[in-house]
């Protein structure tokens, strides 16, 4: 039992020592490194899969030990938790100590001031009391303590820079608070992405189903999201002649809170760098792209029009790829339907150039749009129960022959294409879409607050020096200067000595008569110690 207690106590002492903190800091830095060098799931899942596929057993090993999700891995959290505990453990006693030292009186004047890193002495005609009064005036703002000494002398001890400790405490506590706020954020945050066509289409934050992708925090199940709706009326992009993007704006309207009941819409120009902040959520404009519109006129005369976003494959020219899918109308027989589904897939170029009949894009803006499409007919596999990407067709259906290409064509807006069974496909034109992200993190203001405190505390603790000055005045005992006063000054910086010499020098210059020539040498000694 005793042994166990001793063990615990020693572990605790070890854990909360500064040396351990230092080592933990290093471990944390080291552990964070793979996250910068290896692809991470949270940032780019596709790259992770590629990496694992390319690296065989090594990739799988890394996968097992969480190297593709470093910041959520057990070992990363373990270091971070240990550091947290170590921090709490060392802050508690230090807080008490600081609180005491904040109120402490300056310490007694040491007997031998000449031993201090900074010191000077001089002889003056002023009396002891006058010297003391001068010193008090000069040391205004310092915490002072004046004392009687033996043989008629007096001394002042002065101390300054208590804020350093305060800053240091603020810094460390802010760091604690920051870590805690981060953890809270991880519990209750969520992030979802959604594509909204810029033709007045609407999006409501009513549940995870409304999103194209959704990443909930640990305690978020996707119900109970903050309610708001928005619609995207228009999207403006402006490009430099080089094709570099210069300006994006989605003109949106939104409603939240009471506006939902009264159905009031409020406009907001959503731009990069200026998210919409409503009811605790933020809406960002993360990207944009094009959604071509196709109309299919079926042999029975029925029409279907569909506008689906295509995915930009080149961020510079916005050459995009995608698949727009149609079900034949009025066909209730499943088997028959599976022979007549249509998909229009291929490339879209906002500013078309044809090189050897291959479509490419020369510019990201809509100058001369065109599509290069394959029309596929047959079974799209949409009711196979397997999910499929909205940007592509199921290649396995093509491979097993159930989905066949029936036409291949390059088209401009307004152009039509007739299939063998009389179906007409028209490329009507193109809409822009906005790629939006909704984010929610109830703790982020706290994180910011702690971060600001952290910097303020850090600055204070690093720039302010805790330093002391002592002044001692004694009536001269030298028979050659009767009635005069010997003044001794000593100085000590409690942390970093550098730079204190200047301040000490100025105080000494103000309090002492001009040094006699033979003092110069001693001054140099002072300075020498300083560095």
């Amino acid at each position: 039992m005793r042994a166990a207690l001793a063990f615990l106590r020693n572990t605790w002492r070890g854990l909360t020592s500064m040396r351990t903190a230092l080592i933990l800091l290093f471990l944390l830095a080291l552990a964070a490194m793979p996250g910068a060098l290896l692809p991470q799931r949270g940032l780019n899942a596709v790259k992770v899969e590629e990496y694992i596929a390319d690296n065989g057993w090594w990739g799988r090993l890394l996968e097992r030990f969480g190297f593709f999700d470093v910041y959520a891995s057990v070992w990363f959290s373990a270091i971070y938790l240990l550091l947290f505990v170590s921090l709490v453990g060392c802050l508690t006693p230090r807080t008490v100590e600081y609180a005491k030292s904040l109120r402490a009186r300056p310490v007694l004047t040491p007997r031998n001031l000449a031993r201090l890193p900074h010191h000077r002495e001089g002889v003056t005609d002023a009396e002891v009391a006058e010297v003391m009064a001068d010193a008090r005036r000069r040391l205004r703002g310092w915490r002072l303590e004046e004392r009687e000494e033996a043989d008629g002398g007096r001394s002042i001890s002065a101390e300054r820079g208590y804020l350093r400790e305060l800053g240091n405490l603020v810094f460390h506590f802010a760091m604690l608070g920051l870590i805690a706020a981060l953890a809270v954020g991880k519990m209750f945050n969520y992030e979802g992405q959604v594509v909204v066509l810029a033709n007045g289409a609407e999006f409501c934050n009513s549940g995870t189903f409304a999103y194209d992708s959704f990443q909930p925090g640990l305690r978020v199940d996707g119900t109970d999201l903050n309610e708001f709706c928005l619609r995207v009326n228009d999207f403006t992009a402006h490009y430099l002649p080089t094709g570099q993007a210069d300006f994006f704006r989605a003109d949106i309207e939104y409603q939240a809170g009471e506006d939902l009941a009264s159905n009031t819409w409020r406009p907001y120009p959503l731009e990069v760098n200026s998210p919409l902040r409503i009811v605790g959520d933020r809406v960002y404009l993360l990207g944009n792209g094009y959604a071509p519109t196709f109309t299919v006129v079926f042999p029975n005369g029925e029409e279907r029009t569909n506008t689906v976003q295509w995915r930009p494959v080149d961020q510079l020219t916005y050459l995009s790829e995608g698949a727009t899918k149609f079900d034949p109308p009025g066909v209730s027989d499943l088997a028959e339907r599976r022979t007549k589904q249509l998909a229009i897939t291929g490339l879209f170029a906002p500013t078309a150039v044809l090189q050897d009949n291959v479509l490419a894009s020369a510019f990201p803006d809509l100058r001369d749009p065109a599509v290069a499409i394959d029309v596929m007919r047959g079974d799209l596999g949409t009711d196979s129960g397997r999910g499929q990407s909205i940007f592509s067709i199921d290649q396995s259906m093509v491979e097993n022959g159930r989905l066949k290409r029936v036409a291949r064509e390059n088209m401009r807006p307004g152009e039509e294409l007739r299939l063998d069974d009389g179906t007409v496909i028209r490329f009507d034109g193109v809409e822009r879409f906005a790629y939006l992200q909704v984010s929610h993190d109830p703790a982020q203001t706290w994180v910011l607050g702690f971060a600001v405190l952290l910097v303020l505390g850090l600055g204070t603790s690093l720039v302010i020096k805790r330093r002391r000055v002592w002044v001692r005045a004694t009536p001269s005992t030298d028979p050659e200067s009767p009635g005069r006063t010997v003044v001794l000054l000593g100085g000590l910086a409690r942390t970093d000595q550098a730079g204190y010499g200047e301040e000490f020098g100025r105080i000494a210059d103000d309090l002492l008569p001009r040094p006699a020539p033979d003092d110069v040498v001693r001054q140099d000694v002072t300075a020498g110690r300083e560095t």
Partner: protein
Amino acid sequence: MPVNETLSTYSDWCYGAAVGVYVLAMLLSLVDQAFGRRVPRAVRERELVGAGAGGSATPPADPPAGSDRDGAGEETDRGARARRMGRMAVALTVLGVVMHLGALVLRGLATGRVPWSNMYEFGATLCLFAVVTWLVVLRRFAIQHLSVWVLLPVIVLMFLGGVVLYSEAAPVQPALQSYWLVIHVFAIALGSGMVLVPGVVSGLYLVKVRRPGWAGRLPAAEVLDQVAYRTTVFAFPIYTAGVIFGAIWAESAWGRFWGWDPKETVAFIAWVVYAAYLHSRATAGWRGGRAAVINIVGFALMVFNLFFINLVVAGLHSYAGI
């Protein structure tokens, strides 16, 4: 906002001229480093400190010591000449700074935005801050003969910047059109530029304590340690603030304030390493050599973050263009 080609050309000339002047300064300072005779440290320091504190009530009293000994004839002619070259090197460095600043101002005027929006410009800004930091250090510590070691990496960085990473003056993407570009990048460039000095000086410290045979002309180890520590102490809060500004910007541009983007990750690691440096100086047994190693590691991480992460790993930050 169209780019003013004339101004941007002048800016490039200034940049080239600044590099040229730095090279000259480095050569002169090399002579100083190799042959200049040093006065006992303590004396010179005191002298300079007095000068630095100028304007206070200090009577121009201490005429003394330092200059007396300077001229005391114990110096060889060659040593004196070399030291004069060292002083010229400092003057040239100031001239270089003026041209360097001119290059940045002209680029800013040419593009109508702050001149630190791509890697070339960021490197140029960082180097300017590094040199200015060094000049400030020289006002406090009489170690001008070490200029060569500071100018060398600056020149290498500026050369790489001007030749490999150069990019034409151009406006920036929507994501960069934010006043946080002004604040965040300024703070990061200032912080990173400042830590170049302690990085270099810590290297010299290690030479001084581990290979004293090579280090006859280096100042006392404590002086090197002080320079490294005091510069880091100013740079660290600035760098910290820069990282926080970055997080604030990320919150409004990318939808989250922290996402372990490679750049963010390495910034965090470097931050932790510098925090460890400051702690190591307060922990017995880590002071001195080990602290210097940590400082060098910190600086290496900054450089790594600038080059490797931008050029090879490419996360969100790389869209500033090279």
